[in-house]
């Protein structure tokens, strides 16, 4: 069936702001097109439930950068103006090309995730409908009933513009919608609500080489295979898992009849399934405001649920050579004597196509069940559990975002300003000027004296301001010398900072370059001796981190380091201090590992008793708070003295300060 020797290539195009297409095929390293969850058999959202296709791709950096913030990159320049290529809502097309034949696997929009290294996540054309929120209450349907497909088209036209998105409905469902009011939900949810009343598929599918928003009845009665596959030629791996937990063979739908005004019940049963699995009933309580308000509609609704749930759910996971023709609702016949003694019929519920040009993997993975279904999880979500009230749907709760560990973002449609809030604070970003306005997460303030260490116990490194409130600005004992104020905060970390408030007679200041990179516990670096009469030192520390983070996990790396000083002629190292510097990051992605690398810095200032000294930096410990959550590249991570400064100032007086520490959104 699938030829044993094929030539593979791919096309990835991204539409620029002026409508032209940039061909990035040459830079493509990996791509995945997915409809539904193929990682699990029998559970999770199937492609027939999700109805939204996603594309993830990675690009190799070669020559100009793909980072949207690189204004000098060729990719981000259009007619001499800055116009980033990888940017939300740029249209994306992806084709797999096999033996010269092109198969369009994806068309959609960028925006779900864009990284500087050229890794992106995209959603199909439904993104536009999901991002569009219905802001104005409108009445749809009519007293005598309006065809559902007309109602869907009206919703699209009212909110996206006349004819902007055309619904393709080759066969009318024959479902009439009576008058109802629609408000405050996304356009996508609103049209799915209509299609959900009669169990039809509504989503983007390839029709005549073009992705169209199609309303279609899932071919539930289809029993002829589109493709015949066998274990000798076509299947790398096939796994079978049988789980009857989600079988339902009796469906009871309660609804409000529009003629009688009374609540009524329709019950449908599937005898064959009852004989096989025993009686498994489910009840669906439709609200009084439901579009289902006649016996015929309730029966049709119950029949759709029964058709989809009376048999074993998705039972088979198959790993094939890339086979772009496979999509949800495709049917296949499989001959694999290792799994079954018969030639079995399956229908595809979820599908993922992977083209990995770096890893050398060109595969199609499918989750398939014994028959075509129009949904699985969507029906079970409607089920009323015994003893429970009518299930609360998302649309009943209203327009709230799910609480997840990801920034909540709101865009002001009038100005375009994006407000985002995460656990660290609140930030507003103006898309026109790219101005970032961080807002405050936590503030602490107080008064202190020179040399005091202020404990904060913040979670992020704060911005600290100190102003003198009591400090002599002139000491007549040194009237012939130049005098200066030194008021600043040092040793700033989430734990706190040190206050410096001095009147000094300036001496010589010498700045030195960086020291060795310390990677292993016990590694140390010693500076040359300072000049005579050094009265204070300021050391800038830099730490570099690199680690991977597995999906939905934290990973971290920390270095504990010690600074000591040794007077000339002494063999004793005197402790200046011991500190910890670290990095902890979370991977929001549900599917992919995240690679993190980045630097953290710290400064330490201290006064010395004068005389020539030398400084020693020692790595005392290194560790992760989250072992086993991703690869640690300890060999590349380091801590070092980035620069250090010696000063032979003479302190003429010390004083007090008022201080303000701010932990803010968007801050480090």
């Amino acid at each position, binding site marked *: 069936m699938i030829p044993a020797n094929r030539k593979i290539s791919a096309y990835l195009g991204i539409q620029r702001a002026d409508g032209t297409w940039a061909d990035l095929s040459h830079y493509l390293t990996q791509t995945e097109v997915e409809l539904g969850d193929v990682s699990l058999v029998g559970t999770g959202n199937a492609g027939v439930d999700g109805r939204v296709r996603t594309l993830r791709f990675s690009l190799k950096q070669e020559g100009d950068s793909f980072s949207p913030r690189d204004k000098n990159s060729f990719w981000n320049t259009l007619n001499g103006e800055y116009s980033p290529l990888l940017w939300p809502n740029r249209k994306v097309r992806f084709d797999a090309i096999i033996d010269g034949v092109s198969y369009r696997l994806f068309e959609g929009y960028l925006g779900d995730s864009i990284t500087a290294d050229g890794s992106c996540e995209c959603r199909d054309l439904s993104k536009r409908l999901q991002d569009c929120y219905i802001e104005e209450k409108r009445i749809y349907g009519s007293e005598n009933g309006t065809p559902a497909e007309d109602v869907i088209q009206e919703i699209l036209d009212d909110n996206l513009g006349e004819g902007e998105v055309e619904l393709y409905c080759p066969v009318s469902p024959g479902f009439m919608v009576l008058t109802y009011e629609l408000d405050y939900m996304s356009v996508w949810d609103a049209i799915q609500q209509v299609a959900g009343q009669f169990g039809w598929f509504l989503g983007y599918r390839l029709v005549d080489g073009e992705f169209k928003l199609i309303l279609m009845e899932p071919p539930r009665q289809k029993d002829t295979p589109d493709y015949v596959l066998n274990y000798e030629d076509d299947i790398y791996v096939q796994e079978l898992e049988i789980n009857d937990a989600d079988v339902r063979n009796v469906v009871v739908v309660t609804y409000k009849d529009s003629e009688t005004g009374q609540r009524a019940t329709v019950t449908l049963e599937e005898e064959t399934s009852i004989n096989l699995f025993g009686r498994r009933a489910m009840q669906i309580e439709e609200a009084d405001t439901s579009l289902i308000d006649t016996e015929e509609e309730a029966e049709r609704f119950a029949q759709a649920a029964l058709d989809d749930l009376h048999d074993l759910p998705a039972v088979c996971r198959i790993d094939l*050579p890339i086979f772009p023709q496979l999509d949800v609702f495709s049917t296949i016949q499989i001959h694999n004597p290792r799994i079954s003694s018969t030639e079995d019929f399956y229908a595809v519920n979820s599908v993922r196509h992977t083209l990995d040009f770096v890893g050398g993997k060109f595969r199609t993975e499918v989750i398939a069940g014994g028959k075509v279904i129009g949904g699985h999880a969507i029906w079970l979500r409607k089920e009323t559990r015994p003893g429970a009230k009518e299930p609360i749907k998302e649309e009943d709760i209203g327009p709230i975002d799910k609480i997840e560990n990801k920034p909540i973002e709101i865009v002001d449609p009038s100005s375009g300003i994006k407000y985002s809030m995460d656990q660290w604070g609140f930030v507003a970003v103006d898309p026109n000027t790219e101005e970032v306005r961080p807002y405050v997460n936590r503030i602490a303030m107080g008064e202190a004296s020179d040399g005091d260490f202020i404990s904060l116990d913040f979670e992020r490194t704060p911005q600290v301001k100190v102003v003198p409130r009591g400090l002599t600005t002139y000491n007549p004992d040194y009237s012939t010398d130049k005098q200066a104020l030194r008021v600043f905060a040092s040793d700033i970390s989430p734990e706190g900072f040190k206050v410096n408030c001095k009147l000094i007679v300036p001496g010589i200041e010498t700045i030195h370059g960086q020291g060795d990179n310390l990677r292993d516990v016990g590694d140390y670096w010693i500076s040359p001796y300072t000049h005579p009469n050094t009265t204070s030192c300021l050391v800038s520390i830099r730490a570099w981190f690199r680690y991977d983070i597995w999906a939905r996990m934290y990973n971290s790396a920390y270095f504990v380091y010690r600074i000591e000083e040794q007077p000339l002629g002494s063999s004793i190292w005197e402790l200046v201090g011991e500190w910890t510097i670290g990095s902890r990051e979370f991977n929001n992605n549900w599917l992919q590992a995240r690679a993190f690398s980045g630097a953290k810095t710290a400064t330490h200032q201290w006064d010395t008793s004068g005389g020539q000294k030398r400084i020693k930096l020692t790595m005392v410990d290194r560790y992760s708070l989250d072992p086993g959550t991703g690869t640690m590249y300890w060999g590349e991570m380091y801590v070092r003295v980035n620069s250090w400064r010696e000063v032979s100032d003479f302190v003429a007086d010390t004083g007090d300060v008022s201080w303000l520490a701010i932990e803010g959104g968007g801050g480090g």
Partner: protein
Amino acid sequence: MASSARFDGIDIPLVYAVEIEREFIGDRARTAGGKLRQDLVAVKRSWQLHTRPLRLEQANQLLDHLEAINYGPGDFWLDDFGFTWNTIKCIIFPESIHETHVEVSINGEWHSNARELSLTVVEV
């Protein structure tokens, strides 16, 4: 004497041996029934070149150029390709370059710092 290889127009003189290899880029695996099948993206060639002892300046001409282009792609020509304009875009990985310091007489002249080069040229 004409050399038998060039990179970005720079002679790689006195090549006495060339080992040609081919790399399969694609997905090759056995099906559940044991049959070997493959999906091919491309086959890329690589050439491992070995030279006789060269004068230091001859070796440095190539090595300095590679460093100047950050060991990036260049136009490779081998006498097998025919006309000198029949070049292939290739990369010479720095880690593939083996440089042997030898003392030898070249054309009757003693060279205490001659070089024998061995390097691999890979089709991009």
